[in-house]
């Protein structure tokens, strides 16, 4: 268990998501184990005493977006409701706690909220999440809440505008942080298609690591596949893209075996895309700026309220089409496959980007990077327009 604590605390720091020395991870085995600064560990221990879960993560994000969102919220607002698909599906909403509520008995309040939600945001503290069964779940939930917070804050800036000098400072900081486009390291791009099965696995593992290193996914999630004749090799459900060794399922295209039962929830989408395009590789990530822009619509007078699943139109960001659709069996597969062929890219409302590699993985990764780079530039262009 200690090694698990080290690993996932290390990941929070490595992902550059948290302030140095401001992250703690705790596990309740038969004894309480904790890693991280004393104040956070102590608060975490008090919370863990009150709830029946295995792990807890408590960390202050590097960028203070949690505090900024709380300040932007109405005084009587008790929860944030980000509109991205991951939040809608898995988190539902994110309770928020203000500093003024953190009097004596704070741990009881936080435990009460964490008893009903996977993660909460606490002013002046950061993000606190549980891991019901594993330390990895606490890390994943922390990362998912962070993704939701990031997407909501950036969306809100464009829709409801800058509201304070703190927002202005943050915009400047974000522009500086995301000024330079993502560039692909040579090791990420392999222009030769894999032939042997071992090569397929090796390339999937390497491309998976690259998408995480380039921060093109949240919680290291997303999915990746390669079609080789009658077989689709696809990452497993819940697999971290930077740790795909042993987590790739070979799925026969004719469904002659059900070994792929543990394959990504987007197996059906991958299969449909292969059928529609004849491509060899598919990469699916959740790059933040693409997710933000996918949810912004210029349409006026539209009566549709469930745009994320019911939007009847295909919109575009440059050449990339945006379609609605729920993950898994929720219809995404039927919406993406018909539109992805032209540009080799498609965006799903509030969810993420699918890209094709017609001959090799490098193409898919290059397209994913290109979409996110374009979206970053476009986001800040629109923000400048909004500010003026």
């Amino acid at each position: 268990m200690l090694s698990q604590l080290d690993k996932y605390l290390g990941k929070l720091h490595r992902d550059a998501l948290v302030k140095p020395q401001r992250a703690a991870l705790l596990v309740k085995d038969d004894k309480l184990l904790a890693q991280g600064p004393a104040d956070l560990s102590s608060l975490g221990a008090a919370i863990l005493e009150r709830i029946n879960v295995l792990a807890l993560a408590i960390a202050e994000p590097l960028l203070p977006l949690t505090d900024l969102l709380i300040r932007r919220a109405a005084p009587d607002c008790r929860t944030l409701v980000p509109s991205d698909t991951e939040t809608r599906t898995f988190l539902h909403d994110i309770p928020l706690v203000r500093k003024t509520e953190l009097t004596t008995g704070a741990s009881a309040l936080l435990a009460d909220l964490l008893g009903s939600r996977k993660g909460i945001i606490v002013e002046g503290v950061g993000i606190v999440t549980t891991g019901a069964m594993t330390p990895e779940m606490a890390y994943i939930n922390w990362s998912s809440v962070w993704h939701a917070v990031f997407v909501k804050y950036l969306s809100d800036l464009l829709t409801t505008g800058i509201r304070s000098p703190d927002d202005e400072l943050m915009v400047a900081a974000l522009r500086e942080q995301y000024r330079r486009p993502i560039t692909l390291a040579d090791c990420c791009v392999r222009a030769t298609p894999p032939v042997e099965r071992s090569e397929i696995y090796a390339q999937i593992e390497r491309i998976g690591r690259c998408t995480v290193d380039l921060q093109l996914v949240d919680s290291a999630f997303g999915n990746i596949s390669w079609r080789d004749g009658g077989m689709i090799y696809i990452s497993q459900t819940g697999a971290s893209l930077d740790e795909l060794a042993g987590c790739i399922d070979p799925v026969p295209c004719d469904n002659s075996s059900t070994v792929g039962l543990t394959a990504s929830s987007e197996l059906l989408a991958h299969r449909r895309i292969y059928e529609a395009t004849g491509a060899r590789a598919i990469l699916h990530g959740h790059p933040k700026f693409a997710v933000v822009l996918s949810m912004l619509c210029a349409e006026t007078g539209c009566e549709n309220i469930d745009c994320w699943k019911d939007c009847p139109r295909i919109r575009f960001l440059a050449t990339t089409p945006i379609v609605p659709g729920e993950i898994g069996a929720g219809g995404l597969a039927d919406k993406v496959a018909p539109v992805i062929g032209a540009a080799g890219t498609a965006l799903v409302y509030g969810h993420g980007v699918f890209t094709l590699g017609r001959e090799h993985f490098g193409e898919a990764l290059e397209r994913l990077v290109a979409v996110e780079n374009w979206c970053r530039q476009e986001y800040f262009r629109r923000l400048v327009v909004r500010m003026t």
Partner: protein
Amino acid sequence: MFGWHGRLLQVDLSAGRARTESLPEEWLHHYLGGRGLAVRLFRDFFQIEPYSPEMPLLFATGPLGATAAPTAERMAVVSRSPLTRTLYDCSVGGRFAQQLKCAGFDVVQIDGRAAVPMVLAITPSGAELLPADSLWGSTVSTTIAALNGRGSVVAIGPAGEHLVPFATIVTDDGNAADRGGLGAVMGSKRLKAVVVSGAKLPEIADPARFERAHNDILRLFRAAPVLFGELGLGAYGTPTLVDLLAQRRMTPTENFCKTFFAAAANYSGPALRAACTPHKVGCCGCPVQCQKVTADGAYLPGYEALSHFGALNNIGDLTAIITAIRTCHELGLDPVSAAATLATWGEVRGAFPTAAELVPLLHDLVWRRGAGEQLCAGSRQLALAAGKPQVSMSVKGLELPAYDPRGAYGMALAYCTNNHGGCHLGAYPLAHEILRKPAPTDRFSFAGKARMIKIAEDINAAIDSLVACKFAFLGAGIEEYAELLAAVTGVDFTPERLKEIGERIYLTERWYNDVNGFSVIDDCLPERFFREAGSSGDGIEVPPLDRARFDEELQKYYRMRGLDAHGRFVDRNFLVSLPC
């Protein structure tokens, strides 16, 4: 009262009368329904012998029943198992549970023993006993067909009548209280069947909140490949596990001597689809519909039964396997225990049964003829009688299902900590160790497994009391179901409160076991798993379990549960500490 009716129907077969009692609201809030409510109701009965007329047989619905809550048209069938001698609950889905709730009862408690075979007919106005002489000796399907038109039916077959300690109670829509021998308890009461009909729907406290929670759950179902994926339970039923567990090298083969069976693909999900062209059916109120039937309406078997009549007995003949399982269904026999007992017998005699021997042996088992005299008591008694107790692959007398514990260490621990024996459903570690839900764990590691099993047991005890299907929790979570429950009942149930309730239920069962003499020596796996390796291959090493690590994790588990090193309660006044 929302969600519950607050009514128990008590039927005394000895006296031939029935009466309705009110259930204390406090009990419903602290034990929910289903398994939990039954555990509370058994406080005065858990030491009674299983076949004693005083031993109750309960059919207990839950607060979500008949409300359109996904997968919640279920009930717990509960009594003391003649096979394990523990309290035993089976979660059973389908129309019967729905009709019972709609008849206006949360629980039916059946006591006593009829002088002659009877059928119990339940309606909203009460109960009636009907003579069943003509049905006694009939198969399950004949019995159900004879009662067609009177409502939804549960029935026993000849196995229950003959007190086979792994006899089942079968519903008219292909489900069963299949493990633990509750059919024999029903048989001991000379109760051939129960029919029920009703139309009284429980009221929902907050319909709008219910709708939101319902939608959240369905969204999670759609996002879960194991439920709605093209290879998932909805598409293939539980036989979808055949290929996966073969690939993971954890298919119990030849009475657990091996963990890989080359012919498993003969009865896999795709093989069944090709051979039987099944279509989907399932419990009412369930969007997954994991049951499969042929065009002529015959139910196709699930994973555990297929694997145990297949790999465990070294049989790869699909037709023979399906025929054997259908025979079990008709006779009212638990196919898992039956197949496991046959495999034990096979190892004892040095030859596993052939495909042709299966059906005759199953009949001999029920009518105690020839080899059936040894087979009819289950694998533990058979192995003991043969002087080879080590070849019974069981825990607390319950034959292990089709997941080899050498391939999943949480499963190894969970088989032992389960209050009613070698069952995977108490903690359902298959979810995280194999199916990667809610998150993957290292199946070849004991690290953290004691805590994971403890938490999962608590959650699953609550799930069994709602009563919801465990498969639902491969997509949704206790978080969403707590919201649903709060919406239905108007009571402030939270996930943590449900876990507290689950813990109370688990510990109460454990207390009953403690009083009945169970301890650490009963929480142990057969020695084979610690001495013999499984079938390694395809880059997967399957070593024997590490006894020291297993024991260490079991002791951790005991500490987390507040038990002593022998797995017994330190607090000898445990029941007094409960809220009610």
